[in-house]
């Protein structure tokens, strides 16, 4: 297997506060990596760095062997290869579901309107959202909005999907429908990096789990090991708190 994403010695700080200290990460083709760790540990920041949404301070990020943090690389081209879904959905409220999905393909890939709409409709159909095609986002439930956000990212035909705590803003009964979509993507072989607080889900879906603590990866390994025999005391504490909260 060839590495899809390689992160090397990544350092990122916001206004003097170091968020990522020295992060290394390898994601293989078709691999699903889950990032776990408490809030503020740097999970979201890492995903935004990989998507080039925030500039990094030091280190390198390779996508298909190319250093995408090189100033000569066009960030728009890089972003076209990866989709990102955010915690707060971030659908465009002034557009219908259909327009939300067709905007990227039409403006970035220069796809014709008919083609973009056909793609959007077939994706919506697949994820059980076809009856919402002409609705505005604020008329959908949180789970539906988040699934539309996933479809919007998929419509760009990404080679890599990033999920930034996509169920954290959802009511508990809506979490499953969104996680189901991600499971489907795994079955199709999509390469994914998933920041999540859903430990049960991470255990099921991940090929590799990375525990991020205070800007460094304290522990990385297959989910069976991380969740049952964590080596580091910090990981044990973190997982114990999750168990105490009844979330694992």
């Amino acid at each position, binding site marked *: 297997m060839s590495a899809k994403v390689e992160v090397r010695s990544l350092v990122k700080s916001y206004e003097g506060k170091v968020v990522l200290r020295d992060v290394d990460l390898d994601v293989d083709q078709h691999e699903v990596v889950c990032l776990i760790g408490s809030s503020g540990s740097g999970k979201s920041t890492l995903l935004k760095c990989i*998507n080039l*949404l925030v500039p990094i301070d030091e280190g390198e990020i390779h996508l298909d062997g190319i250093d995408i943090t090189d100033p000569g690389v066009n960030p*728009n*081209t890089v*972003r*076209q290869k990866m*989709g*990102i879904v*955010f915690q*707060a959905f*971030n*659908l*465009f*409220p*002034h557009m219908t579901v259909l327009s939300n999905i067709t*905007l*990227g393909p039409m*403006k*970035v890939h220069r796809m014709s309107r008919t083609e973009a709409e056909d793609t959007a409709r077939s994706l919506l159909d697949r994820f*059980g959202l076809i*009856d919402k095609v002409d*609705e*505005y986002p*604020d*008329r*959908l*439930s949180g*789970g*539906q909005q988040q699934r539309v956000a996933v479809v*919007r*990212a998929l419509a*760009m035909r990404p080679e890599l999907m990033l999920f930034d705590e996509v169920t954290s803003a959802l009511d508990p*009964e*809506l979490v499953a*429908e969104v996680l189901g979509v991600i499971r489907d993507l795994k079955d199709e072989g999509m390469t994914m990096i998933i920041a999540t607080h859903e430990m049960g889900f991470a255990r099921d879906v991940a090929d590799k789990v990375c525990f991020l603590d205070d800007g460094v990866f304290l522990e990385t390994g297959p989910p069976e090991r991380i969740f049952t025999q964590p080596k580091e005391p910090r990981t044990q504490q973190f997982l114990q708190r999750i168990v105490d909260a009844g979330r694992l």
Partner: protein
Amino acid sequence: MSTSPDDLRGPSLFSPRRRPRKHREEGARGAIIAAISTVVVFGLIVWWVLSSEAWPEVQQQFFNPDHFVASWPDVLGGFWLNIQMFAVAEILILIFSLILAMIRSLRGPAFFPLRLLVIGYIDLIRGIPIILLVLLLGFGVPALQLPGVPNSELFWGVAALVISYSAYTAEVYRAGIESVHESQRMSGRSLGLTQIQALRYVTVPQAIRNVIPALLNGFVSLQKDVALVFVLGVRDAVREAQIYNARTFNYTAYVAAAILFLVASVPVARFTDWYTERVRRKRQSVGTV
């Protein structure tokens, strides 16, 4: 899959779907009290004015029906020019200021000189009284007799208004652009949209909705400020009234012009209030945004 029924979700802020009209009957008693007190208050004011000693003189000078009728055609003709100037200026202002605001919102070192130019322009123009700009451009540029440049005072008078108002309106747009949450821009960029595409398709459409009341306010202001070009000798409503006044020493023509400006601006002011209130109600009913 969970599908929540539509009626639980509330109306959409953006879809054209209309929500049912709310009951707002205040009760007959309140209406009667309001009517009576209004009649009494206004009646007293009118009686006080009409019974004052100076009223006949005031009426003769400002509200003379004969002078009103005599000056009306010229003033009305002049006012038509005001409307034309307003329409042309407003369209240009809305376009030009939006471009300025978008340039000012671009990020990254590459756009620094452009941003600097726009900020300089806005600061400079906002610091100069409009009347000065009107005089400078309206008299100054035609006097240069430059080849290929329009020599009409009217053209340069309207240009001065566009230049001045664009600086203010650009700031209105910019406030709107900044009111759209950063995450919207980010999610546009994450799809691979360029900065300008994200502004144009994601941020600006939402920004404009947020600043429509402020833009309408600018409309009302401009409707009156087009009268400033009268100093250039352009025969608008104010100029025509001045000419009539100079001929007859009666001020009724000015009042006629004032009435025309009022007729044009009061509806826009009412509409602005109505629109702002409607947006406020919709936001409350949706609960977010």
